[in-house]
């Protein structure tokens, strides 16, 4: 009720101001409640040229992921540690837990930690966008226009991210992650963050063609203390590395033709999470 009243009042105010020929004043009044994304200026576009060159496609250094899994494990709290130990045992026994199930996005921070797929980074005025490959919605929007986090952002798989440049380092602060989003150390071992996770990242070039992401992950429901870790990615300029469309659900279907001769997708038979032939149990 109060929201509707506020909106009605504001609409009336804007209408009145517009009628008075005072559109600028109307926009200013609206700014406080509904900020706008301003039209980028030529200077805004030119400013992007001064940022470090992060063009190309970035592929994760998987051997380093594996090494870090062994040498820098998250400081799990006792309850999480018990689950993690069980999941490692299950993985060893050939019963891997499906961390990335249901074709949900891998989410943050697991995407940056365990992905085997490439991503690219786009700079536009007020925004850094990271576009990944593999699960259909692997996408991070990092607002660099100076805005704060919203007071009550909707939780999401990738959270709400704001960033700023500290010299040639992009500092990213991420909140509002779904409690169901995993903190995973591999594709079969990890636990949901269970809420209140906060991630601070420092993305920077280690050398001309190696990008580093220094992550500090605070997840008080599962970690005994904040966890610091780094992931590395190599730059690729060969066009064979260009990002491929990744619609995860497509993998659950195969090409078929219906009775009218139309090309359709037909479901694939799965058993314990993997596709199996028609004679399987």
């Amino acid at each position, binding site marked *: 009720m109060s929201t509707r009243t506020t909106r009605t009042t504001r609409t009336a105010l804007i209408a009145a101001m517009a009628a008075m020929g005072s559109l600028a004043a109307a926009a200013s009044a609206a700014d406080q409640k509904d900020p706008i994304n301003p039209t980028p200026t030529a200077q805004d576009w030119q400013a992007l040229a001064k940022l470090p060159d992060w063009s190309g496609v970035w592929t994760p250094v998987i051997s380093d992921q594996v090494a870090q899994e062994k040498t820098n494990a998250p400081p799990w709290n006792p309850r999480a540690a018990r689950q993690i130990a069980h999941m490692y045992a299950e993985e060893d026994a050939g019963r891997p837990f499906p961390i990335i199930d249901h074709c949900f996005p891998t989410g943050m921070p697991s995407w940056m930690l365990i992905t085997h797929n490439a991503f690219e980074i786009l700079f536009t005025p007020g925004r850094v966008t990271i576009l990944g*490959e593999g699960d259909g919605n692997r996408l991070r929007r990092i607002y660099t226009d100076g805005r704060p986090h919203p007071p009550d952002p909707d939780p999401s798989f990738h959270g709400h991210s704001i960033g700023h440049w500290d010299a040639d380092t992009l500092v990213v602060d991420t909140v509002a992650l779904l409690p169901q989003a995993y903190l995973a150390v591999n594709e079969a071992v990890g636990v949901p963050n269970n809420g209140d996770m906060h991630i601070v990242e420092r993305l920077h070039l280690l050398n001309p063609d190696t990008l580093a992401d220094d992550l500090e992950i605070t997840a008080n429901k599962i970690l005994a203390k904040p966890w610091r870790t780094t992931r590395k990615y190599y730059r*690729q300029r060969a066009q064979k590395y260009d990002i491929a469309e990744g619609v995860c659900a497509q993998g659950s279907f195969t090409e078929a033709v219906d009775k009218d001769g139309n090309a359709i997708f037909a479901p694939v038979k799965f058993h314990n999470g993997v596709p199996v032939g028609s004679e399987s149990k």
Partner: protein
Amino acid sequence: MKREWLNQASAIVAAALLGGALPASAHHSFAMYEPTKTLTFKGTVKTFQWTNPHVILWVLVQPDDGGAAQEWSFETTSPGVLTRAGWTRQSIKVGDRVSVTFSPLRDGSHGGGLNSVTLLDTGQKFVPSFGKEQPELK
């Protein structure tokens, strides 16, 4: 049921082969495939499913007891990763006669993690791989 066996590599060889066929990006780990076991079947390609998150090669395998052909699925990493390793969606075609080396599912279901596939008519061999871990700039 008896099936057409070509060989059964040692655990060491199997582990080496698996090194080129690491778990793919999404969906699941490949730990449900028996890493210490490697089988090789010959068959005819039913479908080469070039999809994310995992590419799947569907093969009809003729049991050597003369029974009806059996459908098997062989899973590997994603189109993006395979493209970088030199594969295309045309690498393997419906009807191709192939020899498939794989790590089988532990429960005996008709599926496996693909280690390599060889086209029997040309001898061309495809191995899943993440490629070299280095920047490729030219």
